């Protein structure tokens, strides 16, 4: 075991927290994190956070030293998505802080609770273009739920308390705390507030009886209702309530990409994903529904295709969302309920009645049977969809799967039937390449006993593959599945379909030997290029007690189907390989 790993595992008991004790800002910060029951901190030291890292040296907190700040924040994000608890990341000022930006925007788009701690130069240097100075609160202003600069050590505990509260309540999101070095070094008696008061911030709202009646009234008369369940179901922990609601009302459930896992993918009422690469049945259901019940879903343009007037043309829209600004933002609603999804469903369940959906469900089943997700197998060639199916079948839909963005991400959404909530960890809104692999590290640390698979493309993996060092250093048994088509697959697909096969700058054939790359980091590497090899290699990988990188060399020309081209409507689906 390495020195760092030993340090990580030896710190098992939290010290007593003495209030009133004179502490530096850095010490106070770490005390706050412990009081917030933070388990892991991901980060990278530097000049402006040296006081914090010095305090960390003797702290109970477990710190994961990534090889890049982007790796740290995606790992913190993966931890947060897999647990619902806030992820915590520390970076130094200037470039350290700006390296967090992609990760912060990723979390903001998907409503993920993060607390990002950045150092800054001492206050007397702020505004002088000092070494490693960056206005990180200004830079992150549009991509955080809120951010702070701590100007006085006496404000530090209150700000940390508020940051965790804001990040995790209401619609979750990232909160950044920028701490100048002089504040980290200053001393003050340590006190931690018992409660938080953020005036004007009303994060939780339980709908009134009248609102619930209105909501149920709108759906009880529907003959062709469909639930569009989004990431809000997962964020509010409402998966079991949604299951009970759908089963009681007999309303089929379409899971948005961010909602996958929030409803069992193999349930008889499950319709999988809608939109650009959604299932035929899901899109037909939306086109023909007389009532669409959006639950924690924001009707984004990968579902409506930006053609909001033609979206679900025959349906009245009912929308529940904790964020009032989402109600009526993208689509006009008949009934809008501003409230927490879980509270709303709990309040609705006793009053909900079974809808007369027998004919509707039969119609949906016929669509599912006529047009399932499918692809053509070719002798001797490994198809990417085949790999994802294999992952699903061998893990029985129980694994945590993280992805990057692109074709492999859509194939995971289509072919891996997630059974449990918080099992798909993927950048939905921002579509961040390089996210999937470090996110898997956070997810695995959060769930050491579950199988964590990081499905990545050969493009995205090369954006953050330096974090292989973390797998070795802390012996994190993530299984990295590279869907290697030697090109930027989704870009290639669009260039084929919409740019007359002009394949501009997608060639990744000059990539490293991924097996050797893994081995260079001390991680087991394997390769498969045929279905038979894939089965054998994957069996060995699952049995291996430690991290593995598997280079699945798949056919390059495979496209993601069905597809609705950007600018078209859901009735203009291209079915592809049928």
């Amino acid at each position: 075991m390495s020195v760092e790993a030993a340090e990580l595992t030896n710190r098992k008991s939290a010290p007593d927290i003495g209030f009133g004790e004179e502490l530096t800002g850095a010490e106070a910060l770490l005390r706050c994190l412990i009081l917030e029951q933070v388990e892991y901190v991901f980060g990278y030291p530097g000049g402006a956070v040296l006081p914090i890292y010095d305090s960390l040296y003797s702290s109970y907190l477990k710190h994961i030293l990534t090889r890049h700040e982007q790796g740290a924040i995606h790992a913190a994000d993966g931890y947060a998505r897999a647990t619902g608890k806030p992820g915590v990341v520390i970076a130094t000022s200037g470039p350290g802080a700006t390296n967090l930006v992609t990760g912060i925007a990723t979390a903001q788009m998907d409503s993920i609770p993060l607390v990002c701690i950045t150092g800054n130069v001492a206050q007397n240097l702020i505004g002088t273009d000092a070494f490693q100075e960056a206005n990180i609160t200004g830079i992150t202003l549009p991509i955080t739920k809120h951010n702070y600069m701590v100007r006085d050590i006496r404000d530090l505990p209150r700000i940390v308390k508020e940051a965790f509260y804001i990040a995790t309540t209401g619609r979750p999101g990232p909160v950044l705390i920028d701490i100048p070095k002089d504040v980290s070094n200053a001393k003050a008696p340590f006190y931690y507030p018992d409660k938080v008061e953020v005036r004007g911030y009303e994060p939780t709202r339980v709908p009134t009886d009248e609102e619930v009646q209105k909501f149920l009234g709108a759906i009880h008369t529907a003959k062709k209702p469909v639930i569009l369940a989004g990431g809000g179901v997962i964020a509010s922990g409402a998966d079991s309530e949604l299951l009970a609601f759908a089963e009681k009302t007999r309303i089929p459930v379409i899971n948005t990409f961010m909602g996958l896992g929030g409803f069992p993918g193999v349930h008889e009422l499950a319709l999988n994903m809608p939109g650009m690469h959604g299932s035929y049945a899901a899109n037909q259901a939306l086109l023909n529904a007389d009532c669409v019940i959006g639950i924690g879903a924001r009707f984004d343009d990968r579902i409506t295709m930006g053609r909001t007037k033609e979206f679900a043309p025959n349906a009245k829209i009912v929308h529940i969302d904790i964020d009032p600004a989402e109600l009526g933002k993208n689509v006009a609603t008949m009934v809008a309920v501003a409230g927490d999804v879980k509270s709303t469903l709990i309040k609705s369940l006793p009053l909900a009645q079974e809808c007369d959906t027998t004919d509707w469900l039969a119609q949906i089943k016929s669509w599912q049977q006529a047009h399932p997700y499918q692809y053509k197998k070719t002798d001797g060639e490994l198809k990417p969809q085949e790999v994802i199916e294999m992952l699903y079948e061998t893990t029985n839909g129980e694994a945590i799967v993280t992805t990057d963005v692109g074709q492999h991400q859509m194939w995971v959404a289509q072919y891996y039937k997630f059974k449990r909530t918080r099992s798909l960890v993927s950048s939905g809104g921002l579509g961040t390449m390089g996210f999937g692999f470090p996110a898997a590290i956070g997810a695995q640390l959060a769930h050491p006993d579950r199988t964590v698979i990081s499905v990545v493309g050969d493009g995205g993996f090369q954006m953050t593959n330096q974090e292989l060092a973390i797998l070795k250093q802390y012996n994190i048994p993530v299984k990295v599945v590279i869907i290697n088509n030697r090109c930027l697959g989704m870009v290639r697909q669009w260039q084929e379909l919409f740019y007359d096969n002009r394949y501009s700058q997608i060639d990744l054939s000059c990539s490293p030997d991924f097996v050797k790359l893994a081995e260079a980091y001390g991680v087991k590497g394997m390769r498969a290029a045929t279905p038979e090899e894939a089965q054998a290699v994957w069996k060995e990988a699952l049995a291996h007690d430690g991290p593995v990188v598997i280079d699945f060399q798949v056919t390059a020309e495979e496209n993601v189907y069905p597809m609705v081209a950007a600018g078209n409507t859901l009735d203009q689906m291209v079915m592809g390989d049928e």
Partner: protein
Amino acid sequence: MERHTIAVLVNDEPGVLTRVANLFGQRGFNIDSITVGASEEKGLSRMIITTGGDEQHLDQLIKQLSKLIDVISVTHLSKDPMVTRELALIKVNAAPSQLVELNGIVEPFRASIVDIGPSSLIIQVTGDSEKIDALLVLLEPYGVRELTRTGSIAMARSIVPAAAAV
């Protein structure tokens, strides 16, 4: 395009104006005018923002503003009767000999001449935007050398006529 006036009560802290202004830019809303100053409560400032757009646009703007942690409340003032005022200083090309003539223009507007120079003078006027616009039309022939306007401040009327309150 319909014009709206909204009052935003915010924490009086550094960067709050940037947050509000950034939100307008990020979400594609336009600011016609924005004024910021102290409110009746220490530690809080009130911004008065005038903007254009339809009802859906305004609804989204108010909801997005309400999401900002430093925003305490958002009030749509122009949906009910309100009092608005703007202050303008207008520097006009004019010789002292034209003073009487200009006083004749300025007085009906309850504006005043607050500075006189050899070739220009400064007129101060308060009122709603339309009143200031009207005075500017009259002063235009003299040549407006410099103009500075504060943007509107506004407040809901204490008594709302029954018809308007419906």
